[in-house]
């Protein structure tokens, strides 16, 4: 009888410990968001979004150059990364038993696990070392390389959810394979593919490491991808390491903007996924 009480007591104790673990696990998120809000909100004004940085040591200024830089580099990365990633995803879902699909699937897993800084070194040797100068193009190339495997895997997973009967129906109606794939299979999973793409965009928008020695960063407004370019994550890094109080203030505000962008993208992706899983899950 006593032993039974002890066993129940151990069980309850372990559950208590796990609830404690949940609290500890949620704590960092709460703390990070709270610190960002407290330190960042006060610096978010119109100048922050419209102006370029003030000269070192002076107060004021904004991060307009970094917003433009991030938009342009992520945009260019999408132009390269999305078609390749989506195309590869469709291929490995539509021709699953081909040898190329197996290889691509395996390699894209390896690529997904590759540290982003290593991809940065690759973009450096591929573009910066050959061009002999830092450029937004090199940054975009590194970001695209990070996007491709993510987009490929989510596209493939989404297409796999399409019931086979849908495919059979289209083929039975006399659709050729390519039209079955595009007009029926891809069309049905379009929201899912958009979701995967959004998640990939959210992830690369926050990447700093691959931009450090490709886009390098810049203090000036510029829209030329062939020149060094600023980016929001680079701004956070540079300003956090800087000696000035005003820089730290801007770093917090930039981090807040960055995290809002990333959260909004991830949230909309999540809502889109729920709709799809609701349909086929």
């Amino acid at each position, binding site marked *: 009888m006593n032993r039974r009480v002890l066993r129940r007591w151990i069980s309850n104790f372990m559950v208590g410990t796990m609830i404690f673990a949940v609290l500890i696990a949620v704590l960092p*998120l709460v703390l990070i968001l709270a610190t960002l809000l407290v330190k960042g909100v006060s610096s978010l004004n119109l100048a922050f979004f419209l102006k370029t940085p003030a000269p070192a040591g002076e107060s004021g200024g904004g991060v307009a150059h970094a917003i433009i830089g991030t938009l342009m580099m992520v945009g260019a990365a999408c132009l390269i990364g999305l078609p390749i990633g989506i*195309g590869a995803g469709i291929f490995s879902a539509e021709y699953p038993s081909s040898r190329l699909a197996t290889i691509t699937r395996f390699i894209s897993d390896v690529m997904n696990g590759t540290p982003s800084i290593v991809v940065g070194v690759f973009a450096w040797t591929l573009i910066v070392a050959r061009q002999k100068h830092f450029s937004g193009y090199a940054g975009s190339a590194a970001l695209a390389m990070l996007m491709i495997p993510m987009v490929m895997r989510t596209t493939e997973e989404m297409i796999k959810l399409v019931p086979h009967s849908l495919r059979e129906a289209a083929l039975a109606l006399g659709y*050729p394979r390519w039209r079955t794939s595009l007009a029926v299979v891809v069309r049905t999973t379009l929201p899912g593919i958009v979701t995967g793409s959004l998640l990939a965009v959210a*992830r690369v928008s926050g990447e700093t*490491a691959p931009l450090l020695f490709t886009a390098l960063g810049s203090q000036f407004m510029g829209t030329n991808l062939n020149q060094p370019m600023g980016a929001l994550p680079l701004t956070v890094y540079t300003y956090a390491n800087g000696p000035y109080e005003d820089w730290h203030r801007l770093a917090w505000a930039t981090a807040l903007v960055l995290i809002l962008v990333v959260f909004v993208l991830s949230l909309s992706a999540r809502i889109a996924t729920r709709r799809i899983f609701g349909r086929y899950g």
Partner: protein
Amino acid sequence: MTAITQPAEVSDQGHGLEGRNVSDAAFRGVLTVCAAAIPILMGFLVWELYAGSRLAISRFGVRFVTTSIWDPVAEKFGALPLIFGTLLSSLLALLIAVPLSLGVAIYLTEFAPERIRKPISFLIELLAAIPSVVYGLWGVFFLLPFLRTSVFPFLKATFGFLPFFQGPIYGQSMLAASIILAIMVMPYIMSVSREVLVSVPNSQREAALAMGATRWEAVISAIVPYAKSGIIGAIILGLGRALGETMAVTMLIGNRNEIAASLFAPGYTMAAVIANEFSEAASDIHFSALSYVALVLFLVTVLVNAGARILIWRTSRGGPQGGRGI
């Protein structure tokens, strides 16, 4: 969830119409180019890393990973402290993150009331969406002061007899970097092990409870062993993330090229040295040495990820097969 069968290959032959085969072949051709781009890019990456580090490989060879002097001016490069720092910070991070994330995963799948499961796992997964540099910023201005003034002195006073908790406290240290890494890898380990635990069949739980086990005993004797291979996979996935993590670690580890027993001492990692020195490297051999570091880091992460796969494959073959009827 119902199992969805893989679409069968449909033969391209026998359509009857000539034009169809052409357009189908063109469609397949375009997709093939996209799919082939991935292995080609990867091969290119490995080749460029190797080509970039050839100079350093021929000059230092294997000594590169066994010596400790990193001096760009004297053109001497040894990466042992970097490799040590990468491995130690990642393993320490796992030491902190694994119990926490498994506790959360088990609680959420086995004990938590239905209505709080989704919100909590969503909150923790949000942690995975926070960019690394934001962790770094928060770490430098919030976590470091807190650790320096409260946690580290406490550890020193309580466990100061151990060599790990001796020496001066700077703030930026191996331990600080490991703590931020632990926070960063926790959501990955948590969400993968949660998926694994959810997929454990209910018969497993019912059997244990029917034998008179308490709920905790059911977890530890029937559910966790069943999900063992997947949980190991989740942990190794977390390890892979931690090894390559750059920005937050660079900002918190102190960037000193030394192997120290004390966790309060600054350290350095492979990713951090590349981040700090690559854009400022002046000589060819310096670039080459950094490229060599990138190559080593790449190989380590590939090995870890491949190891995870093999391990999962082995344990799941040797493990319980489940669903045996009466």
